[in-house]
C-alpha cells in the first residue's frame, strides 16, 4: 500500500478534520501515517522517511500556517526526500485573505498543492490519486 503522512502542524490542536482525513484516506486505500496535532516539520519528515511516503499532507487550521510551514521544503531536501509532494490545506493563514496571493506564498515556500478554506479532503482525493500515480 502506498503511504501518505498526515498531521496538523505547529501549535495547532484542531483534531476533528485530522481524524476525518485519516478515515477518508484509509477508505481510499492508502496506508495513512497520522502523526496527529501539534506536530513539527521534523515529525512530518521523520514519519515520511520511515514510511517511505510519497506525500506529506499538512493541515493547518489555526492561522499560524504561514510561520509554521516556512523552510519545510529545505528540511525535506536536507533529509534526502527533496522530491516528496507537499500538500497544505485547512485555514492556512490568519483571516480572510485573497487566496491567489496566499497560494503564491505557499508555492514559493516549495509546497506542491495549496488548498483554500472549505476544501474538504474528498475534493483533494483526485489530486492525491494523480500524484500517487493511481
Amino acid at each position, binding site marked *: 500500500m502506498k503511504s501518505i503522512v498526515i498531521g496538523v502542524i505547529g501549535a495547532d490542536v484542531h483534531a476533528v478534520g485530522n481524524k476525518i482525513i485519516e478515515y477518508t484516506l484509509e477508505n481510499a486505500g492508502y496506508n495513512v501515517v497520522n502523526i496527529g496535532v501539534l506536530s513539527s516539520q521534523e515529525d512530518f519528515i521523520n514519519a515520511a522517511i520511515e514510511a517511505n511516503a510519497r506525500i506529506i499532507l499538512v493541515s493547518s487550521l*489555526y492561522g499560524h500556517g504561514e510561520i509554521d510551514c516556512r523552510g519545510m521544503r529545505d528540511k525535506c531536501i536536507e533529509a534526502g526526500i527533496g522530491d516528496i509532494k507537499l500538500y497544505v490545506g485547512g485555514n492556512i493563514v490568519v*483571516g480572510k485573505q485573497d487566496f491567489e496571493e496566499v497560494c503564491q506564498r505557499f508555492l514559493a515556500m516549495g509546497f506542491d498543492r495549496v488548498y483554500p478554506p472549505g476544501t474538504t479532503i474528498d475534493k483533494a482525493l483526485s489530486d492525491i490519486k494523480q500524484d500517487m500515480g493511481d
Partner: protein
Amino acid sequence: MELTNKKMTEADFLAEREKVRQEWSTGWDPELDFSVSIPYLKQIPDHKIFAKKLLKAKQASVTMVQPRAGVPVLSEHIKLMQYLENAGADFLPTTVDSYTRQNRYREAEKGMRESEQIGRALLNGFPVVNHGVKNCKTVLESVNVPLQARHGTPDARLLAEIIHASGWTSNEGGGISYNIPYAKSIPLEVSLRNWQYCDRLVGFYQEQGITINREPFGPLTGTLVPPSISNAVGILEALLAAEQGVKSITVGYGMGGNIIQDIAAIQALQNQTEFYLAKYGYKDCDVSTVFHQWMGGFPEDESEAMGLISLSATVATLSQATKMITKSPHESIGIPTKEANGFGVKASKFVVNLVKGQTLPSTNLLLAERYQIEREVDSLIHCVVEAGKGDLAQGIVKAFEQGLLDIPFAPSRYNLGKILPARDNDGNIRILEFGNLGFTDDIKAFHRSKISERAAFENRTLSFQLTIDDVYSVSTGKLVGRPKNR
C-alpha cells in the same frame, strides 16, 4: 506532591508565585506585586467588573453578548475592542494567540514583532504575556466594559497573573477544558495543578475583597459533545475552582442544534452547578451560564453564517443563559475582520433585544430532556467521585484514564477517545459508542434506542459514518447528517 482537591496554602501559593514570575521577563514587572495590583483592582469602577455586571444581567434575565477577538499588535487590538464595544458587546474578550497558549513566548514574541513590521497579523490572537501588564492595562483603560482573557492554555499561571493585575476581571479556562481539547501530551495532573494555581490567585484576590470571575470552557472540542459530558466537566471545574476560593463562576455550553435539548442543557447546567456547589459545602458562589453560538464547522456562505448566528442567538436568549459568545460570518474562513465580528455582535444583540423576556415554556418534552441530562451528569460525577476515592481532582485524572469521562474528537492522549457521538432523529446529540463512559446501563439503553430509531429511519446500520455525516451536517445546512437518499 500528589494532586489533591485542597485549597493551596497561602505559603505554597506565594512560593510558587515567585517561580511563575520568572517564566518570562514581563513576570518581573513590579506592577504584578500585590501591593500594586490590589489597589489597582480596587479602584476599577463597577461597570468594568465582570462579576457585578453578570449578576445584574442574571437578575434581569437578560442575555449579555460577548464576541471572541484578539490581534497581535496593541494599537490594532485596542481599535478592535473599541469597535466591538460600539457594536454593542456587553463584555469584551481578548483572545490569546496559540503560541502563548503553549507557553512558547519566544515564538509569540517573533510573531508579534513581525506582525508589527509587516502590518499584517501573523498571530491568531493577542499575546498577553509578551505584552505584559502595561499594555494590558492600556487595553482595559481604552474600553468601558469588563474584559476577560479567552485562550486554551494548560499552564496559564503567568497569563492569569498578568491579566488580573491589569484589571481584567475574568479568566476563561480550567484544568480539563483547557487541556483535553487544547493539548496532546500534557498530563491532566499537570493542567489541573496549574489551574488550581489560577483559581487560588482568584481566591487570594477574593480574600482581599476583590471578586474575579472564572469561566470553565464549556464547548470543549465544539464538535458533537453530548450535553451531559460538557455539563459534567463544567460542574467539576466549578467545584475545583470553588475549593480554591473562587466565588463568581460562569459555566458554559456550546449549542447542539436541537432547541429543546439546548434549552434543557442550559437549565440543567445552572441547576446542577448550584446543586453540587451546595452539596460540597460551597455556599456563597454566584453561578451564571454562558451559551456559545454554534461551535462546530460553520457554513462558508456569509448569509448562511448570519442565519446560523441569529438562530444561535435566538436559542441563547430563549434559554435565558446569562451570556452568549458570538461568532462572525467569516467563521469558516479565518479570524474575522472587526467589521465581520461586529456584524455577529450586532445581529445577536438585535435578536436578544427582540426576544428577551420570551421563554420556552416548561413542557413535558423539555422537562424530560432536562431530567435525562441531569441523570447522566449525576452518573458521570458519581463515577468520578468513586474513581478518586472521594478526592475530586484524583477522580478526574482516574476517570479520564479509564475513559469514564471521555470527550469526542479531543487531541489529548490523556483522553481515551473511545466515545462516538451522533444525532438522533430529532437532531439531539446522543452517543453511538460509549467506550468506558460512566453511564449506567439504562442510560446507555436510552441512547442506543434513540440512535437506532434514526438509523432505522435512514435505513442504514450504526457506524462511524453517522458521526462523520453529523460532523459535516450543520456546515452544509442540515441538522442531521442524513444519507443522500433521505
